[in-house]
């Protein structure tokens, strides 16, 4: 298990190195010259050149990459050119907000989605199943921004129950903080729920037809034990994978939702960086997003092992 974990960590590091090179090269290839951006439209060539020298932009690419990568390894993500501040704190703040959104949304999606999926599987073909299918289809078929706008209109503008956007730190009180989260979370849940519910339903239906479920029934186990203890744990594997991908997705920033609800997360930060051509900020943000994706997937694989002893065994053997 430990060896497996080490291997996975090593490959994760490798992926991040490759990613960092790609990020660096691609952002360098973006149109526009950083030095002229900073210097402004009417600056003379000398000023631009001076800024370039100061930022080390006259150096060969490999040297620039080396300096960037070395900084990151020392915990220095660089300075934002536009905000003229160190990137680290800005990024961490945005990441923390996205993390809150991701964790809350994911917990809700997992709990509600798995419950609906199990319910639909157990009542397969009956009205409950069809209702779950219908509702989840509606969630998946209607674009997320539509839900966002509808929710803002109903709860924000008409009922005036919830703030229509923005963010309040938890230090200013739990309720205001939670109130700002409700609408973005609900929108995200509507967007992600259908897939989780349908996936859980189909793998649950498969598992309910297995011999070990039949045998559990033959042992006289109550149906609740059969479903929760015997079937669900085995049915969760595909759901875990998708949940991990969704987690990475939200963490990486859900631009549309963050924009509509003015939620200052990773998505809006990245959008801002790109619009303003803030190269160091773009690079750092993308790198952190990729790292988050990788970590989410690693967590999923470890959860797999937790759920399925056979996988755990395979890890021990390797």
């Amino acid at each position, binding site marked *: 298990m430990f*060896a497996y974990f*080490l*291997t996975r960590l*090593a490959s994760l590091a490798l992926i991040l190195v490759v990613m960092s090179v790609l990020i660096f090269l691609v952002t360098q290839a973006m149109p526009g010259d950083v030095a002229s951006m900073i210097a402004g439209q009417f600056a003379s060539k000398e000023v631009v050149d001076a800024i370039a020298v100061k930022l080390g932009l006259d150096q060969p690419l490999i040297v620039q990459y080396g300096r960037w990568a070395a900084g990151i390894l020392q915990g220095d993500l660089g300075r934002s050119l536009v905000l003229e501040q160190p990137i680290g704190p800005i990024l961490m703040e945005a990441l923390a907000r996205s993390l809150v959104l991701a964790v809350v949304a994911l917990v809700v999606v997992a709990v509600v989605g798995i419950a609906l999926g199990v319910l639909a599987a157990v009542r397969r073909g009956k009205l409950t199943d069809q209702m779950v299918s219908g509702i989840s289809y509606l969630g998946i078929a209607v674009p997320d921004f539509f839900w966002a706008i509808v929710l803002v209109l109903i709860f924000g503008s008409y009922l005036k129950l919830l703030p229509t956007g923005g963010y309040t730190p938890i230090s200013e009180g739990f309720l205001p903080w939670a109130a700002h989260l409700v609408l973005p979370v609900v929108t995200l849940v509507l967007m992600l729920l259908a897939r989780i519910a349908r996936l859980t339903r189909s793998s649950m239906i498969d598992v309910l037809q*297995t*011999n*070990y479920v*039949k*045998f*559990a*029934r*033959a*042992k*006289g*186990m*109550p149906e609740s*034990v059969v479903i929760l*203890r*015997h079937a669900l*744990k*085995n049915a969760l594997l595909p759901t875990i994978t998708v949940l991990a991908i969704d987690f990475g997705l939200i963490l990486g920033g859900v631009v549309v939702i963050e924009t509509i609800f003015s939620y200052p997360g990773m998505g809006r930060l990245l959008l801002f960086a790109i619009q303003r051509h803030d190269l160091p900020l773009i690079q750092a943000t993308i790198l952190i997003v990729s790292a988050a994706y990788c970590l989410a997937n690693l967590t999923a694989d470890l959860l797999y092992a937790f*759920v*399925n*002893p*056979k996988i755990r*065994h395979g890890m021990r053997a*390797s």
Partner: protein
Amino acid sequence: MMTAPQAQPVLQPAAAPAVTPAPAPLLDIRGLTISYGNARGTLRAASDVSFAIRPGEVMGLVGESGSGKSTVAMAILDLLGGGGRVDSGEILFDGVDLRRLPAAERRALRGDRIAAVFQDPFTSLNPALTVGRQIAEPLIQHKGLSPRQAAVRVEELLAEVGIREPRRVAASYPHELSGGMQQRALIATALGCEPKLLILDEPTTALDVTVEARIIDLLAKLCDSHRLSALFVSHNLGIVNRICETVTVLYGGVVVETGRTGRVLSRPAHPYAKGLVAALPRITAERRHRLPSIPGTVAKLSGAVTACVFAPRCPFAEETCRSQPQPMRMDEAGDGVRCWKADALAGMPWPDEDAGAARPSRPQPQQSAPLVEVDHLRKVYGANRSVLPWLRRAGTVAVDDVSFTVGRGEVVGVVGESGSGKSTIGRALLALTEPSAGTVLFDGADLTERVRRGDQDLRRRAQLVFQNSAASLNPRKTIGAAMDRPLVLAGHGDAEERGKTIAGLLTRVGLPAAYADRYPHELSGGERQRVNIARALATNPDFVVCDEAVSALDVSVQANILNLLAELRDEMGLSYLFITHDIAVVSHIADRVLVVYGGTICEEGPIASVLRPPYHPYTEALLSAVPRLAEDGQEVPRILLEDAAAAPGGRGCAFAARCPRKLGAVCDEQAPPVHATADGHRIACHIPLATLAERASVFPELMGDDARH
């Protein structure tokens, strides 16, 4: 049984013996009718099924797929599922009609008073829970034990079913145990609450023969010591013969015969029972013997029974059989048969359609160069030479230094248990897997080399028939389209000509040419396997690998397919590599047989020599484990092997870990020497040939056959 439902007008009450009144049955099934309904209509799975099991009695419920035997068993457990419904009848358990009980009370009986063990131990245990926890569940549920008390009881139970390290096994997950151990764990689960009735649904079908022998032995002992009653559902008459006192034969959801096992299996009264017994492949040294078979397939039934269900396939059928439903006729001893001609047919054997008919004498395998030569073949799976030390793996040795030949027109049987490497050998011979070492010559040329060159001729000349007849055919393609593909690949350009070839091939394997337009799901298992054979023959091959080609088929159908394969070999001069776990089947078709264990050949030779001493200790155990009918000869003492299978690929003899005649360290440390005799019989064993030859024959009845060879 006394209250005769209207469909059984001639039912005579069984006269109770005067001296000892028969005890009240523990399970009494009366007039049970079960149907499965779906959108397309209802299908009758059981019609008016009645039988009784007395306390302490083990009853066999036999029949082929579609006979309704599992349906009846599941109905007793109230686990029909999938649209199954009991339409009428009573299931009396200890005098109480289970059907009248609320679902919760029936559930409370399950696992407590009525316990079950199902067919496939590999899938009957939950992979995510420890074995101990799964055994403990009913103890906690029904007996109110605390988890700690249950854990103690679990260890006792595991010890009772013959598991040596109960504590370790209880803490294991299912995948860490062998199939035999898993089945023992399931039996331990069933015994936990000390039930009165066991429902055993094909409990050994998925196991290897030597493991099966031990499990049956265990079940017989347990039923005896716990005075358990059991309903033993099986298609295997040999096993039923070994463990059941009485047997009930089902056909098309109808009980056609019931009675004491010895009588039913030695003197079957119903034509279907006669056919079933006759079609059973028995170990024979007489290779040319053709198996009797039951023509036709089980019809799907719906609506009321208006005729004898077996009439369409019965060679003795008359007009009366087709126009009137047959009543069950019981005699004083409790034996019953549902056939009005039973008395007239008494002693009449199942007709062997071409017994004595002159069959084309098979050309002897030519003595010229063999078609396939396998030389020091070795195959290792999963080896990894990674730079990362913790990823390096030696791999699993599937086949270890195997050499043999297949002559032109010769049928070589490969017999072995799961994991013996027999399928890998077959795949290597078709270049479907690349050998790790060694060579395979096909018609004198190196196979691996040929494949590298992209030699299509090889693919044409060597074909494969798999076990699973359904999974081998694309469900979305018609039979004709499936057969067309190899013809196109073999370069037969003209579509009309190909159509004719397909029609000819279908006719050749005994199917109507019109089947070309059908889809696989419209065919029965036997018919699909005929299609697979026809497809293998499409390219006019010289060599066909049959990998468990008849294992999934019912006995009567199996006989059909074996006969077909034998005919094709005789007429087309085909060579087969016939891979199977069933030595009885191989004895009907093979010229020579290889007995493989742990990736090595432990014995090889002409079939008649392999069936007689001297035996390799593994062959001897394998042969003694084959379930047989009483009439085949006296019971031979069975050699019971340990379940544990050692990983092959060590230095010594692969069988050493399980060998009952192990000499000592030499078996573990040195590869066994090969003793060879004149007729090509070779045994790889440290025990001297003379000592091996001292053992008595497992089949005394075969000893007189020598003259014929």
